[in-house]
């Protein structure tokens, strides 16, 4: 039982890792907490659903469409809202991101209603291994996320774009002096983040039913993971996501499952009180 929960927790953690990474990258490069992560994930799930169920594409192609759709939505939100408010500080930006979140969530609700939907995928028997049940979906999630994480890590570490993003995150003025175009970097950041959130939406849709609140349900775990890792630290976000995933699933052993979400909230609160910079250290969270 405990081993099964631990395994489920790792998969949930991997699922949260992508949006947590997206949140932390936006925070690092653009300096605000994007409260629209959840709704962008929802948009990804619906985009993939349309491609998969209505257009009959295989899930792989649907995932690509989801990634492109959310990347486009991210660019649009940046162009129409975030860029115009950039000079007004992070409080304004995070309130605006809440507004963007409402818009995206309700665009999805407008077109698809409140009904639950699922992808058109063949049901398959779970594999048993050492007494642990492993679903096909869980394997898909784990492999996809692992590949994404390696790619994002390589992108941030080794490519000129990654270097430029880290430079802007570190010191935007200095990066500008060295000829790094902040505006271009911001746009490319949204493309990357949108792709991650789109994929996360597809994986979330494999894990549970797709409805307009699918992303909102992950909102607090995502933030908990990113804060646990230290907002702005990509590696930390992934580690934080695994910890949150395992903690949420394992909590079923001690508290009623209805209160699973409280775990993430308690982690955030405890962490901010006792170790405000996250487990992996980041810029100060306290004033």
């Amino acid at each position, binding site marked *: 039982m405990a081993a099964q929960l631990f395994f489920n927790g790792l998969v949930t953690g991997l699922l949260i890792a992508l949006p947590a990474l997206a949140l932390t990258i936006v925070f690092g490069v653009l300096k605000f907490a994007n409260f629209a992560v959840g709704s962008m994930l929802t948009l990804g799930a619906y985009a993939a659903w349309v491609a998969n169920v209505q257009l009959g594409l295989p899930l792989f192609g649907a995932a690509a469409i989801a990634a492109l759709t959310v990347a486009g939505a991210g660019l649009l939100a940046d162009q*129409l*809202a975030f860029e115009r408010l950039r000079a007004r500080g992070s409080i304004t930006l*995070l309130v*605006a991101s809440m*507004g963007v979140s409402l*818009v995206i969530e*309700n665009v999805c*609700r407008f077109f698809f209603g409140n009904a639950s939907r699922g992808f058109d995928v063949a049901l398959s028997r779970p594999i048993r291994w050492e007494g642990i049940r492993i679903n096909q979906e869980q394997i898909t999630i784990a492999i996809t996320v692992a590949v994404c994480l390696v790619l994002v890590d390589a992108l941030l570490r080794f490519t000129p774009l990654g270097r430029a993003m880290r430079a802007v995150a570190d010191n935007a003025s200095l990066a500008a002096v060295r000829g790094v175009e902040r505006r271009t970097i911001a746009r490319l950041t949204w493309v990357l983040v949108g792709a991650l959130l789109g994929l996360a939406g597809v994986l979330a849709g494999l894990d549970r039913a797709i409805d307009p609140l699918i992303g909102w349900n992950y909102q607090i775990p995502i933030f908990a993971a990113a*804060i646990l890792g230290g907002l702005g630290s990509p590696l930390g976000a992934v580690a934080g996501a695994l910890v949150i995933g395992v903690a949420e699933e394992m909590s079923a052993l001690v508290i009623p499952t209805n209160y699973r979400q409280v775990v993430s909230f308690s982690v955030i609160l405890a962490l901010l009180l006792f170790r405000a910079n996250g487990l992996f250290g980041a810029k100060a*969270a306290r004033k």
Partner: protein
Amino acid sequence: MIAYLVTIAILVCVAALVGLALNLQWGQAGLVNFGVVGFVAIGAYAAALLTPQVGWLPAMIAAGALSAALSAGLALLSIRLEENYLAIVTLGFGEVVRLVILNEGWLTNGALGIPDIPRPFASLGESIGGDAVFIVFALGLLAIVFLALEGMARSPFGRALRAIRDDATVTSALGKNVFLLRVKAFAVGGAVMGVAGALHAYYLTYIDPSQFTPIVTAYAFMAVIAGGRGSNVGLLVGAGSIMALLEGTRFLKDVIPVIDGVQLSALRLGLIGAGIVLLLILRPQGLVPEPKRRAADVLPKAGGGR
């Protein structure tokens, strides 16, 4: 038609109370609270559960006090945090409140909600018409809270809060206890949200968890942004115009027949989101900008003048 206008007026009163509270916390003190709905829900449930036992006035006071106490507690824990973190902590608090209400059925009756909440002056209402009495009650309550908060905004406390919002470091260098002032702002705001929740419960006489979604928080932000951050008069204008707009969109259904109920509510909520962003971009100072208060208006005339 009259009955419909009365309904809107009462809804405006509730929205304005919530907005006034957020305007104190966010507008004047600069503290983001994404858990507004949690405090409103606490007030509503406290009022619903206590009114049959102790009567409406003690119940309403208890609703405000409980909400204020929890607000102060949350602030004690988290108000030192940088705004991004405060935002997520308060959002999480709102969700926790919702979970508790949903799952602690022995107290809150879970998803079924609490029916038959007695209204204040219900016996008076029977003789002259319930809503007529209730709107006087709601407007009276709004007037009292408005005057209290407006007085607070003009008091040294309000000035200190705005000083903190504009520059916390300077304010603390001038000897103000920034931490304590922020906790107080949060507590007072929490109290007003609790009272707003109680009014909501009395008006509907039935509450359930589905009434307390994060949308309530979004309305409050919209009202504050529309009215003008920090301006209480603006807040009333903002809350009024938003409710008018929201109620107006109800009639869209008659104009555009293809839209169903879910789509209509999605449209309204999406408009709120778009409205928040647009107003932040196009009219950040709001409809009624916060009055610029100069030192000369505040200081005693001893200075000798110009």
